[in-house]
């Protein structure tokens, strides 16, 4: 998968980044500058906007500020459990890109043979997104109760042309075996991962094993890497840029993970803002900033909610 070339006009990013990267956290001036420089704001969800079902303090006001300033607000999550449609009931008015959608969009973009099927190891959201692009799928939660029987031969559908994986709280030997058989025995069968995140804040107070576990289990049998369609793969950027007329140089990615959110922003030529409300702790941030090939965010804030502190000044400046 090729990385989208960074826009030549990144001098804005470099200048601001050079200043901010010397500071552990964004100052008030940095925040006001961000609001000036970036028209399109893309947000991760888990650990950035909410944790499980609890919105992080101050975030709604901060989002409201962006809207008042006329900014485009998009959301991009690696959470593969739901489809895009179901996020609307969390009252997010703007466009959501989720990793389940990214897998379906990817298969659509390569002209996946619609006479074939997809076997899903993951939640219903993936199946819904696949259906939306006309790809037949099976497995997913419908296979939760299935168990491998070693006393008879296990069969598999030879028409499976892709195995699509996401986090699966009902992962089982049966599912791993079925997926592995498709990948090893069906010629050309694609191995697609919505993401490979090791863990996620699927509930507010605990990190839970993520899609990385599902992918790791299958990879341990088939001994090959999947095509990753969610962050940090730049794949969805083409989709977003086209639909929203987004210029990476005037865009900023806000997220809590260095190896997905921030890396996605870097891969697609955007500015990047790391928030400390999710999985990244100070130790990891310092280590990455100190390493020659570490993932370095341009800006860091304790919480995206902190942006609301400059609301009055920002709105004044706009006038």
């Amino acid at each position, binding site marked *: 998968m090729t990385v989208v070339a960074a826009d030549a006009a990144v001098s804005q990013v470099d200048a601001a980044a050079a200043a901010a990267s010397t500071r552990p956290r964004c100052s008030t001036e940095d925040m006001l500058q961000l609001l000036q420089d970036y028209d399109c704001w893309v947000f991760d969800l888990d650990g950035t906007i909410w944790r*499980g*079902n609890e919105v992080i303090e101050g975030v709604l006001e901060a989002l409201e500020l962006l809207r008042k300033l006329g900014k485009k607000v998009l959301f991009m999550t690696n959470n593969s*459990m739901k489809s895009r449609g179901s996020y609307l009931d969390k009252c997010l008015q703007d466009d959501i890109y989720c990793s389940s959608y990214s897998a379906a969009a990817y298969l659509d973009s390569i002209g996946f043979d619609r006479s074939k099927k997809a076997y899903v190891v993951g939640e219903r959201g993936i199946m819904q997104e696949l259906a939306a692009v006309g790809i037949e799928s099976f497995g997913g939660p419908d296979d939760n109760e299935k168990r*491998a029987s*070693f006393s008879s*031969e*296990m069969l598999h559908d030879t028409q499976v042309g892709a195995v699509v994986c996401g986090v*699966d*709280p*009902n*992962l*089982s*030997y049966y599912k*791993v*075996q079925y997926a*592995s*058989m498709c990948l*090893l025995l069906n010629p050309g069968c694609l191995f697609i991962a919505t993401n*490979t995140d*090791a*863990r996620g804040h*699927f*509930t507010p*107070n*605990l*990190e*839970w*094993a*993520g899609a*990385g*576990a*599902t*992918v*790791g*289990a*299958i*990879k*341990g*049998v*088939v*001994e090959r890497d999947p095509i990753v369609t969610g962050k940090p793969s730049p794949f969805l950027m083409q989709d977003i840029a086209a639909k929203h007329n987004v210029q990476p140089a005037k865009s900023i990615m806000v997220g809590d993970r260095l190896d997905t959110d921030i890396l996605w922003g870097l891969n697609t030529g955007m500015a990047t803002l790391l928030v400390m409300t999710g999985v990244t702790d100070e130790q990891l941030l310092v280590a990455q900033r100190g390493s020659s090939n570490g993932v370095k965010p341009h800006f860091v804030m304790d919480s995206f909610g902190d942006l609301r502190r400059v609301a009055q000044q920002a709105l004044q400046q706009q006038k």
Partner: protein
Amino acid sequence: MVSCQAVANGTTQPRRADTDDKRKLIDSVDCFIFDCDGVIWRGDSVIDGVPETLDMLRAMGKRLVFVTNNSTKSRAGYLGKFTGLGLNVNAEEIYSSSYAAAAYLESIDFKKKVYVIGESGILEELDLKGIQHLGGPEDAEKVVALKKGEYMEHDEDVGAVVVGFDRHINYYKIQYATLCIRENPGCLFIATNMDAVTHLTDAQEWAGNGSMVGAIAGSTKREPITVGKPAEFMLDNIAKTFGLKRQQICMVGDRLDTDILFGKNGGLTTCLVLSGVTDEETLLSPENSVHPDYYMSQLSELLAVKEAAKVAA
């Protein structure tokens, strides 16, 4: 038997053993380590001529050790399989990866608790070493519902997670192991083996422990310490237990990537048998770079030495 010499491009091909080779092989080593599946038995049937071959080697004063990467049974559990197939073996001669995990923990003077992903074999071996454990088959039916308020506690005294083949792998186990490894300072991540596939039945290949380990590696971003083939530990432990030097040992197996590589990395003489998963074509293919010192169709070919001795007498 044709012995293969250097081919046109100058590299040495593996050597199909003739009677002289077999005699030389037997004379040059004091100990034979056998992989089990594909060498001693296939599924639940002993490979013909094996009992007599083992008896011959014992009569010649050779030490015999049987290794298997299968962790589902303990050594005592495997003994039942051996005797049921008419093979004369002692439990101490069997090195299952379940035993290897317990032996490893003993070798580092481990005093904490172990969370086990795997079947009863690992638990039994830990019991024999007096090591406390949780998990294993009792977590087989546990379910996680990722809904509001869901939380998982974990035992802070777990100092190691041991991952072995588990037909009842589930998200609860993966998550529990992940919490121990991530939250308990210094918690070890140990894999009995990394085999991608296993031959539980003759009909097809089945996902092996590579998948259980892969799940945990995927959620923790850590690589495990492996105690089974082809990692060094099992070999070190065998050599130490029986007071042997590497040059005194021959590894006999049917897999290039585990058995033969295991033997070569360990400085052993190596012999591939074609009675298991590797065929001659794969062995001799230019894509294969793992070359055993000798190869033969099956273990019982060693009996030719006895026959030759009879004829000479």
